């Protein structure tokens, strides 16, 4: 495993190729362009295909087509483009197709800005498209973690026949960091005997129909119940989070992605001043580490949620805390990144009230 400097977006793209992703469909949008650019050169080298689609809408439907044929396939975009993909994502879930969707989040609403943001949390974790659905959402905090989670995302997608989202902010996408590309080993995964690959009537398998339409209400209800069992299994098996110095913490910060890194530096500075601060960093945003947050809130005096948004994940933290202790929120948005000092000041301010 050789360590090399890589830009987040390119590292994500190479990690996908290493994990057997051979097809990519996307449309240019800042700050994720390095992913399609990298794939356009790289995929033909490994007998795969890259296609610049006419829109994000087309790109996600090409993903539907490739995933339905059993291929490992990925698309990436940034916030406005991810909004356009939502109908397609809902169909992909309905038809139970595995794929990986990368959102390198930028500031919104509307055209917003091209700077880093975390304001697509609701969209990612609530099923931004229509219908009852869930998907696993990974939020890396380093380029190395982005690489590892990208590879995991393909396995989890295949395991559950469900899309997986990698939610990085613009910092993760644009920053260069040392990375060691892990040697990818594919776990034992279910056969894709459901894929549309051409059907021989004598083959013994049923005709493949890649479909999300269940016109009979009772059938659709059964389909949703079946999907829900899958989400329950994902929630049970795929939760990831990290904690720092929780044991004696009076103040517990909850933050993810880039924000969690900045918060960690602020935490260390506050610890030097004798302030008992801990940190919970959700790595999966769905499933969400509600239990560990609930547990921490039963001994903590204050929870502090920091996000690059006007406050979205804070809702999930409050749901987990259930009034055990006060939950404070600090956010910067529109592409503004909270500085270490700002978070440190928030901690010290809370400390005074203890």
């Amino acid at each position: 495993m050789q360590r090399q400097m890589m830009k987040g977006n390119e590292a994500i793209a190479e990690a996908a190729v290493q994990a057997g992703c051979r097809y990519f469909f996307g449309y240019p949008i800042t700050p994720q362009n390095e992913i399609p650019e990298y794939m356009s050169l790289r995929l033909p080298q490994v007998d795969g295909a890259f296609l610049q689609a006419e829109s994000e809408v087309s790109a996600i439907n090409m993903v539907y087509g490739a995933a339905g044929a059993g291929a490992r396939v990925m698309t990436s975009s940034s916030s406005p483009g991810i909004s356009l993909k939502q109908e397609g994502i809902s169909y992909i879930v309905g038809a139970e197709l595995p794929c990986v969707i990368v959102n390198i989040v930028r500031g919104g609403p509307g055209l917003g800005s091209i700077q880093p943001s975390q304001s697509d949390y609701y969209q990612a974790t609530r099923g931004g498209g229509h219908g009852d659905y869930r998907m696993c959402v990974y939020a890396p905090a380093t380029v190395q973690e982005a690489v590892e989670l990208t590879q995991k995302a393909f396995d989890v997608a295949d395991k559950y026949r469900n899309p997986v989202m990698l939610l990085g902010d613009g910092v993760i996408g644009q920053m260069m960091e040392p990375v060691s590309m892990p040697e990818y080993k594919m776990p034992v995964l279910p056969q894709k005997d459901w894929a549309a690959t051409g059907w021989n009537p004598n083959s013994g398998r049923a005709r493949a129909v890649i479909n999300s339409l269940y016109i009979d209400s009772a059938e659709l209800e059964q389909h949703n119940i079946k999907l829900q069992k899958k989400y329950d299994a994902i929630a049970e098996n795929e939760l990831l989070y990290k904690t720092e110095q929780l044991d004696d913490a009076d103040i517990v910060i909850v933050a993810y992605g880039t924000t969690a890194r900045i918060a960690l530096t602020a935490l260390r500075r506050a610890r030097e001043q004798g302030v008992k601060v801990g940190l919970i960093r959700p790595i999966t945003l769905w499933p969400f580490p509600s239990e560990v947050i609930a547990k921490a809130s039963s001994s903590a005096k204050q929870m502090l949620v920091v996000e690059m948004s006007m406050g979205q994940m804070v809702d999930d933290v409050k749901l987990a805390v259930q009034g055990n202790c006060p939950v404070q929120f600090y956010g910067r948005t529109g592409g503004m990144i909270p500085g270490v000092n700002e978070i440190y000041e928030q901690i010290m301010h809370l400390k005074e009230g203890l």
Partner: protein
Amino acid sequence: MAVVFDRPKALCDVPLHYCPGCTHGIIHRLVAEAIDELGVQDKTIGVAPVGCAVFAYNYFNCDMYEAAHGRAPAVATGCKRTQKDKVVFTYQGDGDLASIGAAEIVHAATRGELITTIFVNNAIYGMTGGQMAPTTLIGQKSTTSPLGRDVERNGNPIRVSEMLATLDGPALIQRVSVHDVKHIMEAKKAIKKAFEYQIAGKGFTLIEVLSTCPTNWGLSAVESLKWLEENMIPKYPLGVMKEVQ
């Protein structure tokens, strides 16, 4: 006794849900016959649209997708790019293809995507109950142009085949009709040729088939065939719009 008329192998043995007199059923049969005659049933993958043909995945006896409204050419692209040896077709109505899916069909065509599109133009939105389609004729009544389509209010209808024929990617663009036996035979030939061109790797192929919607046109089955011939063909002339040799 010799069998002179039988169900094509590429068509499932199930009743179709189409309204009496609707020509969607004839078009299904022509596509299935072409697949049978070319012996490619086990290599063929179809993509159903959103529209009256949404259940086409229950009818074509091959692997199938059901796509989001208008996106069948993108789905077919994704499918074909991962398996170049397969025969991939989309079956789409005029609302699906010429309105919400206009971008997808134009770009699949100009890329020269190796797929075949069966474009069923019935000048109306059938499934949702007879609203105006991009192909609805001037003066034609629909539930959203109750006084008849008016250029000032509703704009002009679109001739998809002529438009796509200007692109470099297509290998065959042809408009056919199924209002009588002679034309049905011609339509069959065109559909088969489109599949042949796809298999030969010549380029994108699209056969536009003028079709009836007795239910939403408010006409009997026989009147519909006549209405198609007298009103649609003058606006949507039959023939080969583009063919590469």
